[in-house]
């Protein structure tokens, strides 16, 4: 910048101010452009979905427990029989958002059966409340949701200390809400048998999630 130190009255000597103002504007726009992935994502949720769509994220291994009390490694369970999993996060006492999520999963379950995709796509609900959600609670939830054994499974963490790492790896933020409830970002997570989180879709995109999962399962 080459502002000459002229008088500070009238409109003389504005060059320095104009140059600095323009510089500040460009720097500000660059910072906002950078923070919002080029102006495409203004929420953490969109950023998270874009990032996963661009580069798959490996799911860490945890000891998980199912509704029958069987303890197993999550990666081993995911590898299972080569199915692609649609994963959601719940807590079984939930009265609000998870009910909507549960309905979406019930519809997905019906669709998987209707389209004969049982061998390619599986449903997995993982609880982020390992203290409350022990096997009996999981079994009760499975009954209430009318889960088809084998097609839709519900899991909880064996150890409470893994909770933070599980939520961070999937980018879930859980916020305490009134009446002992939780609020959290709800989504459909596509996970391959190799334990890679490859896509995150909104709960209003269930048909697309199913189509994508079926496509991933039959390369």
């Amino acid at each position, binding site marked *: 910048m080459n502002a000459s130190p002229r008088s*500070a009255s009238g409109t003389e000597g504005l060059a320095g101010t104009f140059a*600095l103002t323009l510089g*500040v504007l460009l720097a500000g726009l660059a910072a906002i452009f950078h*923070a919002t992935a080029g102006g495409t994502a*203004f929420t*953490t949720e969109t950023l998270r979905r874009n990032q996963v769509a661009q580069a798959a994220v490996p799911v860490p291994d945890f000891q998980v427990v199912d509704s029958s009390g069987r303890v197993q490694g999550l990666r081993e369970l995911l590898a299972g029989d080569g199915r692609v999993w649609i994963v959601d996060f719940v807590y079984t006492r939930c009265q609000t958002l998870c009910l909507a999520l549960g309905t979406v999963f019930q519809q997905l379950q019906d669709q998987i059966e209707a389209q004969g995709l049982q061998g390619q796509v599986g449903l997995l609900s993982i609880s982020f409340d390992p203290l409350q959600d022990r096997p009996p609670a999981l079994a009760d939830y499975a009954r209430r949701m009318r889960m088809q054994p084998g097609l839709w499974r519900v899991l909880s963490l064996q150890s409470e200390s893994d909770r933070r790492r599980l939520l961070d790896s999937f980018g879930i933020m859980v916020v305490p809400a009134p009446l002992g409830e939780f609020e959290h970002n709800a989504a459909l997570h596509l996970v391959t048998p190799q334990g890679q989180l490859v896509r995150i879709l909104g709960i209003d995109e269930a048909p697309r999630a199913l189509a994508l999962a079926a496509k991933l399962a039959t390369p």
Partner: protein
Amino acid sequence: MKAWLKPAAVVLALVALALSLPPLRPLIEQSMVWHMLVQMPLLVLAGACAGLAWAPVAGAALKGGVPRWNRFGLSGYMLAQCLLAYWMIPALVDRAVVLPAADAAKIISLWLAGLALQQAHTRAPLAVQLFFLGYGLPMMAWLGLYLASTDLRLCNAYSLESQINAGRGLLALSVGLGVVWAVALVRRSRGGWTAATI
């Protein structure tokens, strides 16, 4: 200069800073209102008070060096506008809750935004004030309306209820600031308008 300005600037900055540290941190972690309508405005206000209290001293030492780069408050308003817009983006509000480094950046930059705003405002003719406030305040009001009315949770760190309250608060704040500005304008104009003030 009023004698209480210096202590006020220090106290406001310390209170705003304390909200980011234990034991008060849970307030801004759990409530968007405490974060966006208490801490953030306090930081801006602390910066503005610091400008009012120390700018005359600093100005004398710099021999008018800085004001030359801030003629009519143009660069100061632009800096404040960019910083405030940046910290209104939901993803960045989340970041400040989750990452201590982002929170530190927020504290410093919003304090700076307050300082820049004060420095700009005292130099700006009415047309420049109208240009920046006429853009900034409706932007804040729009964001407030959106936060208060959407069913989407925009911040993963906050509940929908908290978001709605923060949205209403932002709307009220933008209207309030507009009224304060208009009242100050009327009081200043008692002597009649001149070309220089406009």
